[in-house]
């Protein structure tokens, strides 16, 4: 038996051998783009469809249109009414979901291989022949309006959407939540849904992503058969006014009786696809992107203010922001804000080499586990599509991360973290937190109503 010396940390054995799944791509006869990863270890398939039709396309007085369209799209299609359609998917044991984000409407399907053709048939029926009935519309609209009402109860959601409203400013489409507001949803008619569908579901800027147990020939045949009659038109896109940062402002949304405060601190940031993307990944890893980051260790493991605190760069197709999020006991609201702001100042003074080494090691070594499930692979391909990343993006990822120097990370901090041009937003009980916030001397504490 080997003598054990517990004080010595074991070293890794030989380097692992990981090969990326191969991404194949082709176009259907009607030009629809398809990306495919063949994975035959289990008899299942994942299919994601990305429609360039998110809430950023909502007309100003009809915010919530894209979301409501996504809710309506599977309320009956082809020969099936809403309940029958749901039964069809359920009978196959297939999971079909639709959802809207600011940039896109996503449709996804998870199915056993034996039911792939039948599920795909249903899937294409949904996207090509949705009923968009008045009765279904009325019901789903009422559901959204009540959902909007319910959001008033959720302090974390209030904080997330009010934060985006504040940093993007009301003229930027990313400032609105996908759900919309009571007034704007009330403005939407079933006719609007049909127009939105006609406009955006018939364009050529869809992409279809398939991962799982099939072959490229089988897939081509199936898809061509089902989607052939669907002749997409030329795409459109919108231009979005750029907004700029301004001097730090502190906002408070009052929530009577709250026992915690939701805190959001951050600002607009540079968009995805830029040269410093990899530096920003490592920078955020050090600052607040994982458990052992500066912000979490300080607020949770050192001060005990919170169950967790984190930061991230949040990328949209035509915009981006940096955000620190946490929720803390009301009595620690002022202190927590102060610590976060200090951390933002401090990272601008530079990170240490050992922090960068850690960030690189964890990011590089974790890479293979991002390709475990069909869903994970499909969502990686989705990001690649949305942000128009190069074909060899995943192949070069590790090398790009490895090549980043400490100097580059420190430059990224100076160019991307702005404690003096931030929005500080608190959702909490003003009676407990107002004076704490005033005492921070970060400026006038503005109480706002939201939504």
């Amino acid at each position, binding site marked *: 038996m080997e003598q054990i010396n517990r004080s010595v940390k074991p070293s890794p054995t030989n380097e692992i051998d990981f090969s990326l799944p191969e991404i194949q791509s082709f176009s259907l006869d009607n030009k629809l783009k398809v990306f495919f990863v063949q994975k035959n270890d289990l008899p*299942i398939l994942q299919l994601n469809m990305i429609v360039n039709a998110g809430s950023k396309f909502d007309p100003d007085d009809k915010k919530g249109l894209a979301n409501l369209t996504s809710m309506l799209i599977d309320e009956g299609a082809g020969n099936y009414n809403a309940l029958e359609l749901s039964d069809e998917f359920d009978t196959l044991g297939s999971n079909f979901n639709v959802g809207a984000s600011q940039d896109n409407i996503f449709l996804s399907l998870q199915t056993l291989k034996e039911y792939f053709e039948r599920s795909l048939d249903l899937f294409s029926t949904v996207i090509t022949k949705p009923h968009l009935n008045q009765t279904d519309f009325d019901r789903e609209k009422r559901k959204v309006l009540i959902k909007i009402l319910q959001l008033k109860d959720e302090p974390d959601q209030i904080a997330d959407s009010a934060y985006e409203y504040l940093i993007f400013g009301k003229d930027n489409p990313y400032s609105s939540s996908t759900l919309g507001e009571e007034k704007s949803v009330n403005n939407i008619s079933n006719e609007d849904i049909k127009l939105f569908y006609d406009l955006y579901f018939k364009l050529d800027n869809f992409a279809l992503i398939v991962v799982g147990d099939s072959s490229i020939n089988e897939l081509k045949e199936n898809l061509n058969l089902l989607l052939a009659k669907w002749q997409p038109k030329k795409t459109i896109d919108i231009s979005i006014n750029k907004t700029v940062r301004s001097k730090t402002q502190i906002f408070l949304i009052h929530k009577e009786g709250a026992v915690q405060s939701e805190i959001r601190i951050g600002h607009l940031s540079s968009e995805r696809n830029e040269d410093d993307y990899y530096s920003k990944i490592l920078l955020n890893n050090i600052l607040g992107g994982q458990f052992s980051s500066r912000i979490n260790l300080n607020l949770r493991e050192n001060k005990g203010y*919170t169950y967790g605190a984190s930061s991230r760069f949040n990328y949209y197709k035509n915009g981006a922001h940096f955000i620190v999020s946490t929720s803390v006991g009301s009595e620690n609201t002022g202190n927590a804000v102060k610590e976060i702001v200090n951390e933002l100042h401090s990272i601008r003074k530079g990170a240490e080499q050992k922090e960068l080494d850690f960030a690189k*090691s964890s990011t590089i070594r974790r890479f293979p586990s991002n390709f475990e499930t069909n869903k994970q692979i499909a969502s990686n391909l989705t990001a690649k599509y949305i942000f128009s990343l190069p074909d060899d993006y995943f192949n070069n990822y590790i090398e790009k991360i490895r090549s980043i120097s400490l100097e580059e990370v420190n430059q990224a901090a100076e160019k991307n973290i702005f404690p003096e041009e931030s929005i500080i937003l608190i959702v909490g009980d003003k009676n407990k937190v107002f004076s704490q916030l005033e005492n921070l001397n970060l400026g006038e504490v503005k109480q706002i109503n939201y939504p």
Partner: protein
Amino acid sequence: MEILNIDYEKYKLKNGLEVIFHKDDTLPLVSVNIWYKVGSANERKGKTGLAHLFEHMMFQGSENVPKEMHFRFIQEAGGTLNGSTTYDRTNYYEKVPSNFLELILWLESDRMGYLLPALTQEKLNNQKDVVSNERLERYDNQPYGLAWELIITHLFPEDHPYSWPTIGFMDDIKSYSLDNVRKFFETYYSPANASLVVAGSFDADQTRDLIEKYFGDIKDSHSFTQLKNSIPGLKESIYLEKKEDVQLERLHLAWHSDYAYGRDDAVLDVLSDILSGSKNSRLYKNLVFEKEIAQDVSVFQYSGKLTGSFIIIATAKPGIKSEQLKEEIFKELDNIKKNKITEKELTKSKNGIKSSFIYSLQNIDSIADQLNSYNYFLNEPNYFAKDLQRYENVNADLINSCIEKYLTKPYVELRILPSK
């Protein structure tokens, strides 16, 4: 179903630690998953939440692992890690590139055998603060967040091990002493009270040696009596009402039901799916889709080692009262009793369940955790196919006998009402 036949090897160390291997070389990853057979059910009143607090302390370093380094070492290796606590058990799990397996075995064994020398008052105070905030964030500051706590404290008899929430009551969380934590460790955290699963890509012979090396010298010190399972009953239904700052009224109904893997457990799972699992499920269709008196409805069978509960929750649309939801729910249960569920409904549910078994095989950590779960509840890690068979065996008559047996008995009703 051959695909659900998960190969494994199981053995025991001299100190009682159970070890389960499952090899899968699809990816160069390995998952380590440990279950300690202790959960909040082993606590006593006045010290609730200790099992969960203890879970936090397990991440605070051990004799040879400085504070913060447990996380750091695993993250540096590209690994992910976490733990969780339920009524019945506490689990800890990591997934790392396979070449870092020994690191994980070192870390897990150090905290299994040598946690106490590194335990300090400072660490405890810090994690008491963290857990207090966890409670505030996940329960106290959430709309309807205290409903579960209210239900179980009334559904179960006082002193029943399931009558308090796993997170613990706030006063209790604040009251733990170092001594409480030490005693808890000494009583429950020993190799004979744990099982270790290694799943994924690894060499079995080498790993057996490594496990002997790291875990073999940990002494078995545990000394406690097993809790006995029993299905408590209510003499009569209990009505509760709570005013809260919420927009919509919400109704909760809770019955006693069967324990995990008991005869009726799977039947009740299928019933819950037939009631609320899809758009065309009985209650969703009736309350949400057609009558539009509810914004949402959910039904689930929540079962543990000792017993289970069957829960129905529905949120009323504005202007609708719980009373109406309740009437419709009971009417639907009566309707099923009279007319039985259809073959089509059964097929839908069973196919959904079958698919979800297969979908879950994509994830090595979920296989590892499931091996431990089957081993804990049934003493047979490879129970996947048999588990699915439990669902295949469900029929309309069994559903009806379960409605009769459980859902015609007294229950707890909780209404949360908007305070304004």
